[in-house]
């Protein structure tokens, strides 16, 4: 009896102290809180995000019915996939932990739609240990990756070329995409429902080797990505942005002997960063909203970082202060700009020609050469009347909007052209990735600002009508192939929206030219296949890498 009383007293004490501990140390002991599920509508297998308590919780699907409990992440369930067998209609969802079940939220399931194989977008390194063969914690990001996908890793080079031991794989980051809900996925070549990211511990990896990373979804669909390991720990660049971890952590030892603090500039070891410096001609008026719109365009990038966050961090030095005082300088007045150095005699139609590199020598600190892209926002390109010219996979950008006359002051033209020209620096062509094939600037099925069709108006994202809707972004490679010998204009490029693709007088089916005749840089035959490309997933951020067009200047 005494023992029972003692146990009873101890239980009360535990409860009281537990409550005290919670209030003191801000930890929760109640049931989880669910504010909502985002998006609240989706297709079977689509990834949704939990808005609410996520640490230590699982998601309960069909609460009160035939419940399915799902736990996905290392710390708790931040994301979950709609069960494949979920019927179309409303389903009740809640969070659960040992203390109880949250309030419920409704998820509306749409009729099943085609779900393509996973597509690996990026591999990062979140941790590394050991000195010889190393143990490495990879982050593997892929479009349409199942949360329970399996991962294998094979080392391709050297004496250790064989399958590596992979530890427990678990979901790390996610990015739900809510685009397909308003469209018909069956009319897309590669509908993207979400991006997901797995943590993959791998043991005994040789530094400098190449790893073949293969993901396999629940139904056996696979995708393989070859990832180069850094040759040494000193070369580690966890997020693959070309800024080494050691630079981002301890500063960059510049050629002059100065130490440039990348942290002060705003970079992060685990997030992809792009550093840009911009100077401008005195005749140029940069729109007040331009830089925040550029930052937003990259922040909204469908790209997952090793820390599980999404987006790319672009840092634009336009002389705004703090550590960013190099840019924003007014260049000497001039009419035209060229990459030729020294500038030749002004050609026809051009007076007062200056070299880009003359400006760069005088207005750009050489200590930044391996870190920053340099943009001269000039007036007019010297040879003809294009809106800019940039190194493909390099670091130099010229924006020259004078041909747009009054339109050069518009936010749309400035935003679209800046993102377009920087896209060349990041390895993109007008119609493809780095590859020269399909480098045609007017492909109907490439919704990207790299496409002339969308540079000044933004991409068509609303209704498949090929009219720009003001969204300045690169492509995710979702649209289907258009094959010129077999065009059906009744089906358009997506959602079966009829489009006069060949710009003739009628909607028809049959052979057609889809890279319109008569424009400079187009292709006039009717034999080509035109593809959409995953540009966001293939940006080349490291402009000093072997094979780039960086010329040490």
């Amino acid at each position: 009896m005494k023992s029972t009383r003692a146990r009873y007293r101890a239980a009360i004490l535990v409860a009281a102290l537990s409550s005290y501990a919670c209030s003191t140390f801000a930890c929760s002991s109640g049931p989880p809180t669910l504010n909502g599920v985002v998006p609240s509508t989706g297709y079977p297998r689509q990834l949704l995000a939990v808005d609410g308590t996520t640490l230590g919780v699982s998601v309960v699907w069909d609460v009160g019915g035939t419940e399915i409990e799902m736990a996905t992440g290392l710390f708790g369930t931040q994301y979950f996939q709609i069960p494949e067998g979920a019927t179309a209609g409303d389903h009740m969802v809640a969070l659960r932990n040992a203390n109880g079940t949250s309030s419920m939220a409704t998820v509306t399931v749409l009729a099943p739609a085609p779900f393509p194989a996973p597509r690996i977008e990026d591999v990062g390194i979140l941790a590394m240990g050991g000195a010889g063969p190393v143990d490495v914690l990879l982050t593997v990001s892929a479009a349409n990756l199942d949360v329970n996908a399996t991962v294998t890793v094979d080392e391709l080079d050297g004496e250790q070329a064989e399958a590596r031991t992979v530890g427990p794989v678990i979901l790390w980051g996610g990015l739900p995409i809510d685009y397909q809900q308003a469209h018909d996925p069956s009319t897309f070549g590669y509908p993207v429902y979400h991006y997901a990211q797995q943590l993959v511990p791998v043991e005994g990896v040789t530094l400098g080797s190449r790893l073949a990373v293969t993901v396999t979804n629940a139904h056996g669909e696979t995708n393989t990505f070859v990832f180069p390991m850094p040759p040494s720990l000193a070369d580690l660049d966890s997020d693959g942005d070309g800024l080494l971890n050691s630079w981002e952590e301890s500063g960059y030892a510049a050629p002059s002997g100065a130490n440039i603090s990348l942290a002060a500039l705003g970079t992060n070891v685990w997030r992809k960063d792009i550093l840009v410096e911009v100077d401008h001609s005195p005749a140029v008026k940069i729109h007040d909203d331009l830089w925040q719109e550029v930052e937003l365009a990259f922040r909204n990038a469908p790209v997952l970082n090793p820390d599980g966050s999404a987006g790319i961090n672009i840092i634009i030095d336009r002389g705004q202060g703090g550590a960013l005082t190099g840019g924003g300088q007014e260049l000497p007045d001039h009419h035209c700009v060229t990459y030729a150095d020294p500038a030749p005699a002004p050609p026809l139609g051009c007076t007062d020609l200056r070299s880009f590199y003359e400006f760069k020598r005088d207005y750009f600190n050489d200590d930044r050469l391996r870190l920053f892209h340099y943009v001269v926002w000039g007036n007019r390109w010297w040879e003809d009347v294009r809106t800019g010219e940039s190194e493909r996979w390099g670091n130099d950008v010229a924006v020259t909007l004078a041909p747009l006359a009054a339109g050069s002051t518009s936010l749309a033209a400035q935003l679209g052209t800046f993102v377009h020209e920087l896209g060349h620096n990041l390895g993109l062509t007008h119609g493809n990735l780095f590859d020269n094939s399909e480098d045609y600037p007017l492909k109907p099925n490439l919704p990207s600002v790299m496409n002339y069709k969308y540079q000044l108006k933004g991409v068509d994202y609303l209704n498949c009508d090929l009219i720009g809707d003001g969204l300045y972004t690169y492509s995710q490679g979702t649209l289907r192939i258009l094959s010129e010998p077999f065009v059906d204009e009744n089906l358009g490029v997506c959602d079966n929206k009829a489009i006069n693709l060949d710009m003739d007088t009628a909607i028809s089916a049959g052979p057609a030219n889809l890279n319109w005749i008569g424009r400079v840089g187009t292709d006039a035959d009717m034999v080509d296949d035109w593809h959409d490309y995953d540009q966001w997933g293939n940006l080349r951020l490291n402009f000093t890498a072997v094979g780039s067009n960086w010329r040490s200047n």
Partner: protein
Amino acid sequence: MTTHVHRTALLAVVVALAFQVACRRGADDAQSPRVQHKLFKDLKAPPVNFPRPVRAARDTVDVPTSLREGSFLILRDAKLFEGNINLSGQATMADGRIEFMAQNQSPLEIRYRLPKQLPSPPPYKGIAEFSVLDASDPGGPDRQVLIRSGSALLLAAVMKKSAEPNRVEITPGVFVNQSTVEVNAKVRIAPSRIEARGADGTVTVIPVGELTSARMGGVVLNLFITASYRVMSAEGEQHEGGYILEGWAVRSSQP
């Protein structure tokens, strides 16, 4: 004494248990008990990403207060006009400005600043036809603005880039034509001879950068070409070459 030690020990156990219960899910080290690995040990929970908001950027334009030499702009309802039109209406033309009124249309205003070598056209007020053809893209302009009174040209501004030599009909039967010219890797830019050809077959060569006058379409025209050449892209450039034509034609004050 023994009882006191037992009670103290019990209290310590109870406190430890309480903290364990209270905080078993709240802290960053509360990783899933299902999945353990030595490389996971220092990790913190990642942020939750929600779908990115899709938001169209505002397309705002500040109308320039001054024009660069050899440029023009078209305003409708005090905003920059973009697109194509072909209208008949009432035009008032003077001092670098044309007001154009057409039935059931908002008034249009054309502001222009001629190349300094080109004399201003005489003032005009009366019926006119106004056309804008603009198929420009970022790879190059394809824009022409023409204002005519019957067959007589009042003002033409042309800025074009084309894979083939440009040919522009500035008023019925009167063409401005570029000539074919060869370029190669060594000579990437070459001037393209340009001429005006009248409806009666008369041909007037127009040297680039020189004011040229010719009677065409019933009036004397002042013609000024600022650029006429063909360019070939350099290795590694992102744009194709083509024929460039930039020029102006305005009615002369000569009878």
